[in-house]
C-alpha cells in the first residue's frame, strides 16, 4: 500500500477535543456533518482547506484524551489518507486501524517536513519518501495491517465471520 499526498503539519499533543470537540459529537453520528469540524480546535478553517488524499503530520501524543472513535473517523471521512506522527495515544491508535485509517510513527519526519510538502508513504516497506530524503519506520504489526487491508474491523468481520484474534 503506497500513499502519496500533501502535508498539513501540526504540533504535539493534538487531543481528540481538538480533532472533534465534544459539543458536536454528542449530537449526531452523521459524518458528513461532523467532518465539517475536523481539527477545528487546532485550525478552525482546516476542513475548508484540505483536499482528498492529503496527509496529516504531527508531533508526539497525537489523539490523546477521550476514547471517541469519532476522532479518527472524521479525519478519514474528510479525505485525509494517513496520519504520520512522532507518537500516538493508544486508544486513538487502536481506533484508527479499526475504522481503516492508517497511522505511521516516525520520530524524525515531522521535524523535517512542512505544510505543503508532498510525501509518499510505502506502508508495507516501512519507508516514507520526501523530495530529497527517505525515512524508515517500524512496520505496522501484521494483524493490524490485515484489519487495515480489509478496510477496518467491521469489514474484516463481515468478510471473515470472526475476529482475527479469535484464531489464536
Amino acid at each position, binding site marked *: 500500500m503506497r500513499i502519496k499526498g500533501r502535508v498539513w503539519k501540526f504540533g504535539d499533543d493534538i487531543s481528540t477535543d481538538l480533532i472533534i470537540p*465534544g459539543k458536536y459529537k454528542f449530537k449526531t453520528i452523521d459524518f458528513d456533518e461532523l467532518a465539517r469540524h475536523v481539527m477545528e480546535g487546532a485550525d478552525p478553517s482546516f476542513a475548508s482547506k484540505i483536499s482528498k488524499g492529503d496527509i496529516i503530520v504531527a508531533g508526539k501524543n497525537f489523539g490523546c484524551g477521550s476514547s471517541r472513535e469519532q476522532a479518527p473517523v472524521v479525519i478519514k471521512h474528510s479525505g485525509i489518507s494517513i496520519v504520520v506522527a512522532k507518537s500516538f495515544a493508544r486508544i486513538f491508535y487502536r481506533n484508527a486501524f479499526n475504522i481503516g485509517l492508517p497511522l505511521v510513527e516516525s520520530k524524525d519526519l515531522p521535524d523535517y517536513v512542512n505544510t505543503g510538502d508532498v510525501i509518499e508513504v510505502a506502508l508495507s516497506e516501512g519507508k516514507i519518501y520526501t523530495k530529497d530524503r527517505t525515512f524508515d519506520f517500524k512496520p505496522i504489526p501484521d494483524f493490524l495491517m490485515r484489519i487495515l487491508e480489509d478496510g477496518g474491523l467491521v469489514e474484516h468481520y463481515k468478510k471473515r465471520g470472526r475476529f482475527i484474534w479469535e484464531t489464536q
Partner: protein
Amino acid sequence: MGMTLAEKIISMKIGREPSPGDIVVLPIDAAMAHDGTAPLMIKSFNEMGAKSVWDKEKAIFVIDHISPSSNEGTSALHKMMREFAKMHGIKLYDVGEGICHQILPEKGYVFPGGVVVGADSHTCTHGAFAAFSTGIGSTDMAAVFASGKLWFKVPESIRINISGSFRGNVTSKDAILYVIGKIKADGATYKSVEFTGDAVKSMSMDSRMVMTNMAIEMGGKTGLIASDEKTRAFLEGRIRVPFKEIAADENAYYVDDLEIEAGRLEPMLSCPHQVDNVRAVSELEGTPVDQVFIGSCTNGRLEDLSMVAKVLRGKSVKVRTIVMPASKEVMLGALREGIIEELVRAGCAVGVPGCGPCVGGHHGIPSPGEIVISTTNRNFKGRMGCAEAEIYLASPLTAAYSALNGKFTVPKEVV
C-alpha cells in the same frame, strides 16, 4: 521474575505468566458504553451483522455525558441506545443514575482480578479495585459485545510509590496532578501505572479512584492499586464473585519507579491547556475566578462533596459554583448527611448526577476569557465547550476555598 499487578491479573485469565509486549486475548467481565460512544458502537455492531450480545449480564449502557439531553440530536442518540438495550435485553442506566465510572463499582460490575473495558478513556478508574480496566473505542466495543473477548498488548508497568502522610490540605487529587506533572502527558503511554506506598494504602476508595482515574492523563493503559480490606469493605454486598486480595510480587519488574514523599506535597493546579502543565496553587493565589465546577468521575464522590460542604457550611460562595454528584447513590448519601442542603444554602447550583459541564456538551459552558476551576480531569482547549475559556484543574478543597473567596486560594485543612 515476579509479576506486576497488571501481569498478575492477566496471568489469572490466561493461565500462564505473560511478558510485556505479548499480544493476549482476554475474556471480558464487564463492557460499558455511554451516550458519547454507544451510538457508534451500535452502528458497528449492526454493520458487522452481529446478532446478539455475548452476555446480557456483562454488557452495560449508561446515559451520563449529555444527561438529560439538551437537544433533539442527542435525544435521538439516547433513543437509539434505549432501543438497542431493550432489543438485546441489556441493562441501561438512564438519566439521573450517574456517571458510568461511579455506577460500575457501585453496582458490582468491578472486582479484583476482573477485566473491564469501557468505551471511555477514564475506564482506567476501576483499577482502584485491582481490576485490569482500560478504555477502548466504539468498534472494539462492538467486537466485545459480539464476542466477549478482546486482544491486548501486555503493558510494561511503572510504579508510583507514595510514602508517608499528606498535609491536612493536600488530597489525592493534588498527588495525582503532581505525578502527571512529573511523568507528563505521554510518559506512561501503553503502560500500566501502579500506585503503591502507605499514603495510597491509607486512602479511602473514593480517593484511590481519583489516582487511577487520571492514569490516562499520562497516556496510561490502566492505573492499578492492590486490593485490601478497604476494597473488600466497599465491594461487600455488591459483587457476585468471591473477593480476592491481589497484589504485585515484591520482585516484580518496573520499567520506571517514581518515589514521592507525601508530606512534601502542596495543593496543586493543572493549568491551561494541558493536564501536565502543573503548578502549585500558591503560585496563582489571588487570581480571580469566574466559575467553579465540583463533580465528575474524578471528584464527584461523597468524600468530595462532604469536604466541600465543610468548607462552605454557613457561608456563601462569591462566584457561580456548580456541583454535580457522581451518582444517585452519592446524591442520596449527600442528602442523608445534609450536605446537599448546606451546598444549596451556600449558593451552589446542585444538579443531576452525571458528567455535567466536564465535557462541554450541554450546560455549564464558560464564556470566552473566563477562568474556571474544575475538579475534573481534563483542561484541553475547548474541553468545557468554549475554546477561549481557561480551565484549571484542582482538588475539591482548593475549588471550595476558591469559590468562597472568588479567587484562587490555597486551602486550609478540613477537620
